[in-house]
């Protein structure tokens, strides 16, 4: 991954600096300010704003996981909603049948996700590209069927309700507390992802994505790295599913349709393939998008009559935005962001000198 330009030259003088996550002082301060703002946000935000932010964090976990798999390891999975459903259902079933507490359901969901990741990943050893996408799509339907089967067998025809979890003796009912918990989970996921992709695993994935045959010739065990990618992604996604179940307090198979998978793919595409920042930007965009559409419908004259079919308007607009990004901005929001960054970095010049000076 070509990292965006940070310092204006190569100033590293020791290994410690090579390991540092944050390089320059400006970056350090801006990150710290940003983190402070995020932590202080619940003090000023309305309940609606808090809910939005919490949804962004939830989606960000799933989007980061999908980005690892698709953007870095180059494996396509159309079964993302199935993985979320697996996490949510593990939580729901464990809560209903065993009334298991939060600290048990969470690792159990992660474990279930990891196991499912092996199942999802096994086809990738034989299949590539489209065929892999199709096999994961099929697995999505199998997971959805199992969930529906459980619901009907146990008589929860409308879905499984889950009580809010308790953390250190506190019931998690407050929106602010939820915000902080989800923020912590999203931040942890981001940290794991950042460190994964700059480690041996990440480099192996990079090679794998670029060209499988060459990667194998270089001595990278591609089978195990593919499986690792699937397992890590699935475990993270299942954790997101578990949190989703607790956050909503309700699990129903209708929530995990193919449209959810498409939404996660939209996050990855709109954000920008192959960039963790992209996954974050994408999840912000996709989460806020329905509300923007709703606002636009009410603000524009003559559009009021479509307000009753909000879901349909949403789908149509979503399709349009995805198509526009695929056609005109394949690098996504990150591409736009980098262009703006470059513009200011290079000012008053317009292009990078040939040979990539300054990078």
């Amino acid at each position, binding site marked *: 991954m070509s990292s965006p330009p940070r310092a204006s030259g190569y100033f590293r003088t020791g290994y410690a600096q090579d390991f540092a996550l944050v390089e320059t002082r400006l970056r350090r301060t801006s990150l710290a300010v940003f983190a402070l703002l995020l932590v202080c946000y619940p003090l000023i935000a309305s309940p609606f704003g808090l809910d939005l932010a919490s949804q962004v964090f939830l989606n960000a976990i799933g989007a980061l996981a999908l980005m690892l798999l698709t953007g870095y390891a180059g494996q396509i999975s159309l079964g993302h909603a199935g993985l979320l459903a697996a996490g949510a259902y593990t939580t729901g079933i464990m809560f209903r049948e065993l009334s298991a507490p939060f600290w048990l359901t969470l690792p159990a969901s992660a474990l279930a996700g990891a196991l499912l990741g092996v199942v999802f990943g096994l*086809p990738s050893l034989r299949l590539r590209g489209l065929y892999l996408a*199709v096999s994961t799509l*099929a*697995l999505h339907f199998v997971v959805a069927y199992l969930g529906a089967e459980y619901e009907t067998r146990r008589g929860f025809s409308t879905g499984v309700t889950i009580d809010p979890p308790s953390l250190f003796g506190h019931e998690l009912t407050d929106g602010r507390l939820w915000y902080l918990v989800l923020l912590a989970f999203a931040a942890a996921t981001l940290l794991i992802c950042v460190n994964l992709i700059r480690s041996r695993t990440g480099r192996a994935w990079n090679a794998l994505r670029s060209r499988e045959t060459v990667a194998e010739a270089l001595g990278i065990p591609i089978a195990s790295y593919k499986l690792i990618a699937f397992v890590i992604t699935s475990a993270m996604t299942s954790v997101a599913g578990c949190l989703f179940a607790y956050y909503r307090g309700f699990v129903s198979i209708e929530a995990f349709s193919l449209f959810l998978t498409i939404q996660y793919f939209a996050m990855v595409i709109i954000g920008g393939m192959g960039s963790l920042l992209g996954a974050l930007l994408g999840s912000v965009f996709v989460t806020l998008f329905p509300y923007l559409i709703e606002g636009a419908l009410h603000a524009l004259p003559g559009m009021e009559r479509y307000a009753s079919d909000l879901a349909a308007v949403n789908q149509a607009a979503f399709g349009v935005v995805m198509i526009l990004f695929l*056609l005109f901005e394949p690098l996504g929001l990150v591409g736009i962001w980098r262009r703006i960054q470059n513009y200011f970095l290079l000012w008053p010049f317009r292009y990078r000198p040939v040979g990539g000076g300054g990078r």
Partner: protein
Amino acid sequence: MQLLVNIIVLSAIYALISCGYVLIYRVSRVLNLAHGELMMLGAYILLTVASLFTQNAAAALAAALALSLAVGLLVYLFLMRKMTGEMVLAAVLTTIALGILLRGLVVLIWSAQQQYPAQALGLDNPPIVLPGGARISTFAAILVVATGLVYAALFTFLRFGRWGVRMRAAGQNPLLAAQRGINLHVIYALAWGLSTLTGALAGMLIALDSGLTGTMVTIGLKAFPAALVGGLDSLAGALLGSLIVGTAEVLLVYVNPLLSDVVPFLVLIAMLIVRPWGLFGTREELDRV
């Protein structure tokens, strides 16, 4: 006996839909995941056209089919043409995006209620009693016949037709085909048009038979395993694959009604494990995608 008829009807539905997947994949290596939506769009076009030709059902069908062909051509012209030469993943995602766009648009234009184009055309759908006591509705019978005709026409077209041969050439090796003076864009557009046409025909007949809602997309998606089981680049394979998937679905639904939506995908998984390139598919495909 009734069971056999059910199997044949369902297989014919899947076969008529899945030949659209095969056509596009064979020619341009793009998996069209919007096929179900395009098929539904065809059925809704019939609904709109029906209000213009209330008495003349044949004219309405012909007009709707012509419009569907145009839709397919336009989709290629304005959307997929920009995706030629891009990554396969990008093209597939574009079709997915097109799919949800169409899904939303259909609800916005025609509302989400169940509609009956047969009534709008003033047609009724009497059951035909076959020898042996099995019943089949008229439109289902027409669908089976139409499937046979479409497949026969496609076989002849691809085998002997001038453009059919060009299509096969473009599918086998686009670069060489282009070098020999075949206009790839025209070929691809033709494949999209034909695929949408056959899909829309399936959609219209299903809608005439049993009404029309947004859930028709699911049928389109379930037909996809049929295409893959037979081999994504083989028409004969699609026919056989549809028969396998249709049979499995009809028989297994007796075990558990909830299974109906997963059976095609279970068959698909089994096939991907055993023989990923399908029954009649070309093996080298796997490395090309």
